[in-house]
């Protein structure tokens, strides 16, 4: 009976870990309030996340990871697939996570698109399914389209191509993120934009393509193009805010964070399109019984809108936008999702003012932004090789 159930769930503790992006204490507080489940949160950087998911299955119950990480981790068998029939809002999840298409006419971008690693054949399977099945690897939670961030005040001219990252004009003032799987995609966007390399599939490069990409960037690095590399959200914010860097690959809330300090910063939509990423939560293999039930309860709660609204108001997108709408004001929904002019002040869930009335979100509406994704964060077949080359690049 439900009564007993929620009584018992009060004593249940679930250990969740993930990147700082979505592993927020507000969520834990809210879930305790709504469901009585205690959620213990640990925030790590994405490499550490990968590592823990792959090597320490006992140290967590719920993994909040990105899809490309899932591609690496899933085959270890540390996670268990989820029964779609137990997910209440499954049908309302956006198409990107199901068949890969935002709208029926969308083209599927290169890289590890979420739907390619979103399903497996059966409950115990470690191989991904080509199409939707009843067994989902991760429940999508959060995603976004990334591009270059710039300081318009320090650059003073329009930027419209990825290739600007290596423009000697910004020598000593550019930055790149030091997470191989993401960085390589940014690099590829740049090289392609420069016209130096044409990739077969940026999400799955050949060794030659990898070598050529690194050659270009190593040369730029030695020439002093980069001020620093960043590995985490906050570093990118500080680099930008302190004026050390004027152009760099960046994440959306980082732009917001810079802006809240009163420093002009733009998430620049570029001609070549966005590099996109998505995250989801997965269940540890060791989760059973009452904890497993609680986890499902947690997931359903997650998709029921509060979290979505909470995340959307920071500039991310929710996997089930419809449910989130109820938790956002019209002004917010218009600004964040529909790309409309703000009718009043836009504030973050933490109370910071992010935009004034009349401002429009960089890049426009959800469909404008997610519709021009050029590639997804990816792990490629030559990942091992790429990683070593990346390591060399960083060390060179």
């Amino acid at each position, binding site marked *: 009976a439900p009564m007993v159930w929620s009584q018992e769930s009060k004593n249940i503790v679930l*250990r969740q*870990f993930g990147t*700082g992006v979505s*592993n*927020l*204490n*507000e969520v834990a*507080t809210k879930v305790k309030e709504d469901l009585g489940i205690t959620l*213990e*949160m*640990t*925030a*790590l*950087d994405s490499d550490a996340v990968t590592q*823990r998911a792959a*090597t*320490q299955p*006992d*140290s*967590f119950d719920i993994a909040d990871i990105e899809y490309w990480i899932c591609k690496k981790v899933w085959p270890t068998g540390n996670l268990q697939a989820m029964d779609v029939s137990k997910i209440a809002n499954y049908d309302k999840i956006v198409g990107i996570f199901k068949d890969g298409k935002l709208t029926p006419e969308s083209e599927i971008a290169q890289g590890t698109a979420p739907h390619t690693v979103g399903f497996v054949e059966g409950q115990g399977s470690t191989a991904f399914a080509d199409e939707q099945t009843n067994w989902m690897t991760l429940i999508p939670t959060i995603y976004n389209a990334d591009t270059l961030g710039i300081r318009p005040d320090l650059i003073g001219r329009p930027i419209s191509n990825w290739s600007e990252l290596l423009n000697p004009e910004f020598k000593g003032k550019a930055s790149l993120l030091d997470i191989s799987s993401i960085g390589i995609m940014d690099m590829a966007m740049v090289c392609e934009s420069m016209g130096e390399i044409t990739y077969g599939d940026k999400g799955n490069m050949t060794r030659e393509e990898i070598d050529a990409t690194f050659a270009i960037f190593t040369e730029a690095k030695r020439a002093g193009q980069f001020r620093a590399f960043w*590995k*985490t*959200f*906050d*570093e990118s*914010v*500080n680099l930008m*805010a*302190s004026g050390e860097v004027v152009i760099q690959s960046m994440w959306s809330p980082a732009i917001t*964070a810079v802006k*809240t*300090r*009163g420093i002009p910063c733009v998430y620049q939509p570029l001609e070549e399109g966005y590099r996109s990423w998505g995250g989801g939560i997965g269940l540890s293999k060791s989760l059973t019984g009452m904890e497993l039930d609680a986890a499902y309860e947690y997931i359903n709660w997650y998709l029921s809108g509060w979290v979505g609204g909470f995340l959307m108001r920071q500039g991310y997108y929710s996997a089930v936008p419809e449910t989130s709408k109820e938790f956002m004001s019209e002004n917010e929904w218009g600004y964040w999702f529909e790309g409309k002019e703000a009718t009043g002040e836009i504030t973050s869930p*933490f109370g910071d003012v992010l935009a004034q009335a009349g401002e429009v979100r960089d890049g426009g509406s959800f469909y404008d932004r997610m519709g021009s994704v050029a590639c997804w964060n990816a792990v490629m077949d030559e990942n091992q090789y790429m990683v070593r080359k990346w390591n060399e690049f960083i060390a060179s």
Partner: protein
Amino acid sequence: MERRSTGFWLLTIFFGLFLLFLYGPTITIGILSFQGPGGGLTFPMQGASLHWFRDLFREQAVGDIWGAFRRSFALGLMVMVTTVIVSVMGGLAFRKRFAGSGILFYLIIASLVIPSILVSLGVGLIFNQFGLRVHWASSGFGSQLTWTLPFGLLIMFAVFNRFDKSYEEAARDQGASAWQTIRFVVLPIIAPSLIGVGLFGFTLSYDEFARTLLTAGSYNTLPLEIYGMTTNVTTPVIYALGTLTTAFSLLIIGAFLLAAWAGAKRRARLGSDAGKGV
């Protein structure tokens, strides 16, 4: 007062500059931690307030500073106690040469010089290979010991090198058993050094990052949390934390000095004939 040489004054200036160099960042942190609510991690200051200290005591967006602090404190205490006990025992053992003591000594030196990340990596790998679960209180604890023990032992070696054996002989002569000799004579005499070893062990553990990195398991210790914060937090709350820990250590040192001073004062009341020819 006596006139001091120019060399003295030059050196005093040098020392002053050195202190400035040492404290510069601490002071920078100190100032920046009083940023106004809108302030960032860098200059210029955006107003002045205690906002970030208050913020420190509220729940953070991510992570769990106070949980991490509790864990680090507990771990520090565990490491401290273990280091003191094991170092004393080791120190006692090394007073006599025993078969294999040479090898053990080189092992201690090795433990001191091996880059910490290797220990972290190795312990992580072992736990991984044996299917054990890494946890700050097991693997983390062990890895930290490989760092604090050599220090503790080196201090104990130094202490016992200077320890006058005739104290022990006197105790034996007075009918103390081996255990009583240690309990009532050796330990009290070396107690000040033991406090030193303990404090040292605690500090080393409390601030240990590399060795805990791969061995802490699901829960962060404070340095890991701070490391996490440098990557997830964009506010001066991290500086507030730094300022607070510095103030905290100043307080502890002050308390120790005060206690030592009071003790000396109390003893001095009894007077002294030391050095007099009576």
